[in-house]
């Protein structure tokens, strides 16, 4: 356990170096399904952040009591509880959004991002590190969803957060808010992120050598 990352490293890693969507390709279901507009994307990012951070805290607190062969059961139980809370909360206070997201809120339970963080970090490290990890990963996830939703909403509807940003003359590319638009955008942005990452690492190697 000596070379586990520190809280600060966990936090920073979550945002870009180990970005859940662009680097780990986790949580693809919400990434593709609810990024047709900024509002659902940000709501989903917020709901996932709530579940991830609280599940990380609980699991980290009880990590000494976990039995290896029962741990996945405990993880799932914890995650499902927080997902149910967030689902009820959305239905009570953001009813329209709750209807728009529909089954994608309960589907947070099976978002691999959460169970992977709980397994990799929270079940092995202290609460402080687990919180930093949860916040970092949540920011990374929010950043990824927001970047995809920005492209899709602006090109597909000419709006951003429902506000008109492109002129009335913009022929909204309907395909961008439909499922194919999600795959196109994700593919192009993933390619872009990879290209940028490789260029940077080459430059670092050259500067170092």
């Amino acid at each position, binding site marked *: 356990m000596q070379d586990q990352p520190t809280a600060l490293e966990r936090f920073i890693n979550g945002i870009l170096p180990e970005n859940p969507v662009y680097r780990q390709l986790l949580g693809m279901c919400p990434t593709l*399904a609810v990024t047709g507009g900024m509002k659902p994307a940000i709501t989903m990012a917020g709901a996932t952040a709530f579940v991830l951070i609280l599940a990380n805290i609980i699991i980290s607190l*009880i990590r000494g*009591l*976990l*039995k290896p062969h*029962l741990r996945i*059961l*405990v993880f799932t*139980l*914890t995650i499902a*509880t927080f997902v*149910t*809370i967030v689902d*009820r*909360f959305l*239905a*009570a*206070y953001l*009813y329209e959004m709750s*209807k728009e997201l*529909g*089954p*994608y809120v*309960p589907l947070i339970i099976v978002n691999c991002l959460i169970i992977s963080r709980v397994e990799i970090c929270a079940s092995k490290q202290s609460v402080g590190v687990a919180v930093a990890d949860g916040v970092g990963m949540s920011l990374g996830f929010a950043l990824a969803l927001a970047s995809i939703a920005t492209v899709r909403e602006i090109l597909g509807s000419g709006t951003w957060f429902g506000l008109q940003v492109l002129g009335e003359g913009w022929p909204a590319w309907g395909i961008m808010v439909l*499922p194919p638009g999600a795959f196109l955008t994700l593919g192009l942005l993933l390619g872009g992120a990879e290209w940028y990452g490789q260029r940077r690492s080459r430059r670092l190697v050259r500067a170092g050598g």
Partner: protein
Amino acid sequence: MTAMDEQGKRISYIGQAWLVILLALCFGAALALVHTTLGPRIAENKRNETYSVIPVLVPGADRDMTEELIVQSRSGRDVRVYKAFTTEGKHKGWVIPAQGQGFADRIELLIGQDVDLTTITGMYVLAQKETPGLGDYIKGEDFRDRFRGKPADRPLVVVKTDPREENEIQALTGATISSESVTDTINSAIDNLREVLLAHDSSGAGARK
């Protein structure tokens, strides 16, 4: 295996699983608390949504003239039904709620009927968690329109081809179970409330005060 062995095994099961049991109890209590706190607010949201769709479910009805009644269905349960009136106060029809098990989760519906309960004038999906891209088309206008104008005095039947009989409903492609759940739910709700609503009308409560 001797009795002692078996007893020892049972104790070791508890010894291993106590954390799961304890967590399940704590999380269950937390969820009960969330549900009692947010439940009324969620019900209120659904009621507001019901009111907003009454003019769609019963064409010509005025949402502000709606009268709410609690009636006892044939299965002995109290049901909140909505009696729809035109702006001039003429009884126009009924909106009744219906619940049934869908493919994934419970489906909640609203059904609009005319005054003498012979025709379905509209259908609306209040809550559903059917498979995105297949079963969730039950909430789409195309599917809901398949019920408009159908007879309410005999059971509806789901078919996979173009409907030939008046009481046939064409299933959604790839979502036969969801289509059947909706249809069965409608059939049993109408059947459960039919007599009590007709009795209510003939008891002279037809005109709005």
